[in-house]
């Protein structure tokens, strides 16, 4: 009985808010067509063996084969491990560096705006451009990095992107360089929003330096840290442009990531069915990771 009443109330609220729903409708329609529609189609295609160019031909239904093949696909496993390692390491470095720079910015009084603008420059540059810039910085013969290291430490020609041991680290450095400003921006905004009275009160109570950071700043910005974690995890899990511009996944498979492997499968090997299955698995992974984070946010807020 109660359920019926609740349903009735819900329906009447929908009818009473017709105007609101009408305004939302265009975006909802587009969202349904271009996001959910495409996702459903991708999911449907993942059960077929189909080449991109066979547009006019019948697709062969292969059931779960594409998903089962992933279990024995060693490149997929390597790419998945690389992506997870890459995500985990980059996020930790970005958070630590970002937090301390944001803290520094929060404390300085002069030229704050200028420093903020300069810090944000890498973030607003397109990843492919960043990739190309760093390709020249890393160049073993003519790059500025080796030149500088040689002047001070006589290190010789280091092959940053052409070496199995350094290529992975080199890509992490680029990603950290580009996206730490985002972390700084968000955390600094959080710090700036801390009420002045709380800080004053802490100071009156004799707290200073690290104690204020530990007891006031960190708890205050914690929800923002989770937001940063969600956004950066989703971003890093999909990393493509930088790797593509710098190494194309090489040497060997040392910098192969899930997004790059999916792209190659779809647009170099043209196995769209398998590429769609890879995309769906990526989506599920991101969904699971984000859900964990969101749960944490709900709990903490």
């Amino acid at each position, binding site marked *: 009985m109660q359920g019926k009443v609740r349903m009735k109330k819900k329906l009447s609220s929908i009818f009473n808010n017709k105007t609101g729903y009408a305004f939302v409708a265009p975006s909802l329609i587009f969202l349904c067509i271009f996001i959910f529609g495409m996702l459903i189609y991708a999911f449907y295609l993942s059960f077929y063996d189909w080449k991109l160019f066979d547009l006019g031909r019948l697709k062969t239904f292969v059931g779960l084969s594409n998903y089962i093949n992933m279990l024995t696909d060693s490149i997929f496993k390597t790419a998945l491990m690389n992506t997870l390692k890459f995500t985990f390491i980059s996020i930790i470095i970005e958070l630590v560096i970002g937090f301390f720079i944001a803290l520094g910015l929060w404390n300085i009084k002069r030229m704050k705006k200028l420093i903020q603008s300069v810090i944000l420059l890498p973030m607003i540059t397109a990843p492919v451009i960043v990739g190309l810039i760093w390709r020249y910085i890393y160049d073993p013969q003519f790059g500025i990095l080796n030149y500088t290291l040689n002047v001070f430490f006589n290190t010789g020609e280091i092959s940053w992107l*052409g070496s199995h041991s350094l290529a992975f680290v080199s890509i992490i450095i680029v990603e950290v360089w580009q996206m730490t400003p985002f972390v700084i921006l968000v955390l600094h905004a959080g710090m700036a929003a801390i009420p002045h009275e709380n800080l004053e009160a802490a100071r009156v109570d004799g707290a200073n330096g690290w104690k204020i950071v530990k007891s006031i700043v960190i708890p205050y910005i914690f929800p923002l840290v989770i937001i940063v974690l969600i956004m950066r995890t989703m971003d890093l899990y999909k990393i493509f442009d930088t790797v593509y511009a710098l190494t194309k996944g*090489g040497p060997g498979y040392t910098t192969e990531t899930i997004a790059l492997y999916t792209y190659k499968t779809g647009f170099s090997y043209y196995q769209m069915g398998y590429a769609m299955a890879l995309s769906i698995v990526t989506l599920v992974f991101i969904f699971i990771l984000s859900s964990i984070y969101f749960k944490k946010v709900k709990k903490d807020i």
Partner: protein
Amino acid sequence: MKKSVFTVVCFLIILTMVGIYGCSGDNQTKPEESNGQDNKTEEEQKEDVSLVLSRWAGDPYEAATYELCKRFTKETGINVEIDAVPWENLREKQALEMASKNGTYDILYLHPFWFSEFVSNGYVVDLTDKLGAGYIDEYVPSLMDTSKADGKIYGIPEWIGTILLAYRTDLFKEADIAPPSGWDDILNAARHFKSEDMYGISFPAKKGGTLGDVFSSLLAGTGTWYYDNDGNIAIDTAQAVEAAQFVLDLSGYAAEGLMNFHWDETVNIAMTGKTPMVICMSSNASWLDDPEKSQTVGLWDYVPLSYKGNPGGIIVNYTWSVASDSEYQAEAIDLIKFLSETPQQIYLTKAQGTCGATKGYYEDSSVIELLPSAQAMNQAFTNGMQAPSWGNWPEQQEVLETELQNMIADRQTPEAVIKALAAKMSN
């Protein structure tokens, strides 16, 4: 009030939908729909024709095509629009446009990777009877063959190139070493020149095609290939292992970072005088003698990558084809013929260092002057194999290049590289 807002919003949605539909429609005017065409002169009608040409983006190649199309427009009055997209997206873009049968393109610049696929899908016009009597006799037969399928002509070859060895004549003369005529010579010279200030050799070993092309050239030189004449896998041979071993041996004397070198990085090292030898594409070889780019102008000579004295290599080319759904097929044929003729090809040699496919091109004395590598290219074509272009080559190439890179990093043996490739090919 609420009702009227609701009505307005619904109206806006409908308007948006209609707008999208209108924009996505075929906006090209069909000849039978255009009134007054009959009253126009032939020249005026040609001015109404606008051909759309699809090719990959990037200079100097794209700019050179623009220039030639401008000349064509000046000569004929036919407008040409170029749709240039990054190489990586070209096949996908062309295939999707052709499959959707929108008539978007009139002329397609096809790589051998997808040429046969386009032919079998009926995306390109059979030109066998449309080029005019005796027209194909003007072309070098082996090069013309690259644009044929089942004995029929589906395009005109262009952008002819191969992989060569460029060596510094001054340094070789100084060291009293003869020009390399085999793999052993190359290795010995690399060993001789390798020092603190100089690498022994420079060659590209990045994934994405370059390393695969170097290996294929070496393989072609041995007289063996990935498949035999009957289409059976023929890669698991001693010669293939020897070719992989040669790549490994050479890497010991090569420039630091070669596993991230594409053709441009490889040739950059040679242009700055840091290596006496470089394995490069013939199109990039011209950079070595470009006074604006190179510090080593006039110091290079070229030889094919010979195996035990036998020159060999791969033929790299593109094909100009006419789209089967083009409205203006006759005009499109005129354009591809124009682009492939000797004078235009000589212009392209100057502009981008590539070669033409006509007999006249190779008989032209200015070509030899323009292109010091022309003779070496001709030798390489003698035992030349067309660069791998079968449908699943990209996947096989990925395995080959990854395993070769692992081998260079001492994580794999040459035998294992070939075994892995053979396994992939038979999968």
